[in-house]
C-alpha cells in the first residue's frame, strides 16, 4: 500500500503547498516522492520528535505536511509533539504510519503498532485506515487538520472490484448480520467468506475511518436482531469495537450477539510474521471463517 501512497502523493500533492518529511524511512518506496518534491522533501533523520515539531512549524506557515515513518515510530515516540504542537494548533499535518498492526511481523514488537488508532483518535486526530489502494487518493483529497494515516496491505480477493469509497462501505453482501472490519482486515474477511453462500454469511463492511458518525443506516438494519462482528488488528481498548459498541448503545440498537476479535498482543510470547500474529488472534482467513460459521 505504501507504493500506492507514494504514487498518490506524487500525483495529487506535488505542489508548492506541500512538504514531505520522513524519519529516515521509505527505502524503495519514497524515491519518486523525493524526486518529485525536490527541496520540499526532507529526510529529518532519526529524530521523530523533531520531525513532528518541524512539521508543525511548517504547517503554521501555511504548508500541508506529511510526516512519514513506520507506524510505531511516528505516533508513539513523538506523541507529545503531536498533542501539543500539531493538535492544539489544529494544523494540517498528516502523520503517515507505514505497517500498522503486526505488519512488520518478524521485526518484533517494537515495530508493531497495536494501539496507534486509539492513541491518535483520543487526541482528536482524524484516523484513516485504508483497506484498499484505491482508498488513498480519496483520503488524501483534503488535508486540513491533524490526520493519521495507517498503511497496511491491500488484501482484497484476487481480481475483486472495490466499491466506491465511503468510510463505512459494504464490500460483500450477506444475510446473517454483518462484520465491521478495520482497514486491510476487510480484505481478509472478504476472502474468508467469498465462497460461503450469502444466506449463510454476514455481510462484510470495510471501515476505514474512526468516526462512528459515519456508520450507515444500512449497517444498523443488517445487524439489528442478528450477529454483529467487529475485527481489528488493534487492541480492544479504544479500538473500533468500543466505538461500535458505544454507537450501538447510544442508538439503542439490539443485536443477537456482539463478537469482537482484536489484537491480543503476544499471547504465547513468540514472534513471527504478520500472518502468524493474525492467526494467534483469530484474525486470519481461517480464524474469521471459523468465527462466522461456528
Amino acid at each position, binding site marked *: 500500500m505504501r507504493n500506492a501512497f507514494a504514487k498518490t502523493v506524487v500525483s495529487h500533492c506535488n505542489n508548492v503547498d506541500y512538504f514531505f518529511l520522513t524519519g529516515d524511512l521509505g527505502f524503495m518506496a519514497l524515491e519518486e516522492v523525493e524526486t518529485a518534491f525536490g*527541496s*520540499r522533501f*526532507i529526510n*529529518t*533523520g532519526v*529524530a521523530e*520528535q*523533531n520531525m*513532528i*515539531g*518541524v*512539521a*508543525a*512549524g*511548517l*504547517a*503554521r*506557515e*501555511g*504548508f500541508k505536511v506529511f510526516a512519514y515513518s513506520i507506524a510505531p515510530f511516528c505516533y508513539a515516540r513523538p506523541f*507529545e*509533539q503531536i498533542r*501539543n*504542537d500539531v493538535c*492544539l*494548533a489544529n494544523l494540517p499535518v498528516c502523520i503517515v504510519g507505514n505497517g500498522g498492526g503486526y505488519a512488520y511481523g518478524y521485526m518484533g514488537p517494537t515495530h508493531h503498532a497495536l494501539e496507534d488508532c486509539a492513541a491518535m483518535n483520543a487526541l482528536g486526530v482524524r484516523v484513516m485506515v485504508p483497506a484498499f489502494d484505491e482508498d488513498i487518493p480519496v483520503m488524501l483529497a483534503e488535508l486540513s487538520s491533524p490526520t493519521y494515516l495507517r498503511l497496511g496491505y491491500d488484501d482484497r480477493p484476487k481480481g475483486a472490484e472495490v466499491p466506491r469509497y465511503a468510510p463505512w462501505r459494504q464490500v460483500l453482501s450477506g444475510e446473517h448480520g454483518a462484520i465491521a472490519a478495520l482497514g486491510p482486515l476487510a480484505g481478509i474477511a472478504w476472502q474468508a467468506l467469498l465462497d460461503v453462500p450469502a444466506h449463510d454469511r454476514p455481510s462484510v463492511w470495510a471501515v476505514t475511518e474512526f468516526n462512528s458518525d459515519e456508520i450507515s443506516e444500512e449497517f444498523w438494519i443488517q445487524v439489528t436482531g442478528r450477529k454483529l462482528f467487529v475485527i481489528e488488528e488493534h487492541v480492544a481498548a479504544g479500538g473500533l469495537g468500543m466505538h461500535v459498541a458505544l454507537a450501538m448503545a447510544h442508538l439503542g440498537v439490539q443485536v443477537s450477539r456482539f463478537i469482537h476479535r482484536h489484537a491480543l498482543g503476544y499471547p504465547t510470547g513468540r514472534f513471527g510474521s504478520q500472518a502468524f500474529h493474525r492467526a494467534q488472534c483469530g484474525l486470519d482467513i481461517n480464524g474469521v471463517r471459523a468465527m462466522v460459521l461456528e
Partner: protein
Amino acid sequence: MHQFELALKSVKLRLLKMHYDSNSGHLGGNLSCIDALMTLYHLVIKPDDRFILSKGHSAGALYLTLWSLGKLKDSDIETFNKDNTLLPGHPCVYGISDLLFSTGSLGHGPSLASGLALAAKYQNSNRQIYCLCSDGEWQEGSCWEALIFSIHHQLNNLTIIIDQNGLQGFGKTEEIISCSNLTLRISSFDAHVQRIDGHNCSEIRTALNNKSSIMPNILILDTIKGKGSHFEGKMESHYLPLSEEQYRTACSKINEDRDS
C-alpha cells in the same frame, strides 16, 4: 533608550502585580528573562518576525511584554491564571495571534522554530525566527535533535536564546544534569554561539543583531532567577507566590532602580 527603560520597569512592576494578584509562582524564571524579552520585542523584532516561548513557564513575562506593546489589554492581564482567561500559566495558541503554539512542556520550541525558519527560507522571506529556552530545558533530547537539524539546514534565520539562570525545578542545574558548559557544548556543533550578560539590554540588543550569515544563532544569557525580588537566585523563586510584604519590597526595589 530612556523610554525603553521606563517601559521595562513599568513591565516589571506590572509583572509583580500580576503574579501577586493571581497568587502565582514561576516568578523567578519570568524575572530572569524579562530583560531579554523586552529588548527583543521593543528593539529588535520586526512585524513579520516570529517568536516562540519554549520555556512556557515564563508566560507572564511574555504577556506583559505584549501588553507593553498594546497587544494585550489591562483587562486581559487582570484575568491571568484565573477562570475564563486566555492567559493561563503557560501560553496557549487559542485566541491570541502572537502566540503561535501552546508551550509549557519543555523541549518543543527549538523544533517548532526550526520548522518556521525552514518555511521562511522556502518562501524566500527575510523574516527572523526567535525562540526562548531555559537552560535546564537542554536536558531534553529534542533540543539537540532540533539543534543538529537547524545546523544541517543552515537555518541562519533562527536565533535560539537560552536563559541560563542556573536553577531548575528541583535544584541547581549544575548539580542535577550539568549544563554549565552549554556554550562549549553547543559551539562544538558548529552553531554561532554568543554568551553575554542577560540583564544588560544593550548587550542583548547588540548580540541579537550580530547574526551569522551561515549558521543558526544561539544566544546564551547569564541571568539571575528572580532578579530584583527577595528570592533572587533561590529555588523558591521557581514555585512560590509573593506575600504582601515580599511584593511591596520587590516593587520598592524596582522603583528605587527607576529613580536612580
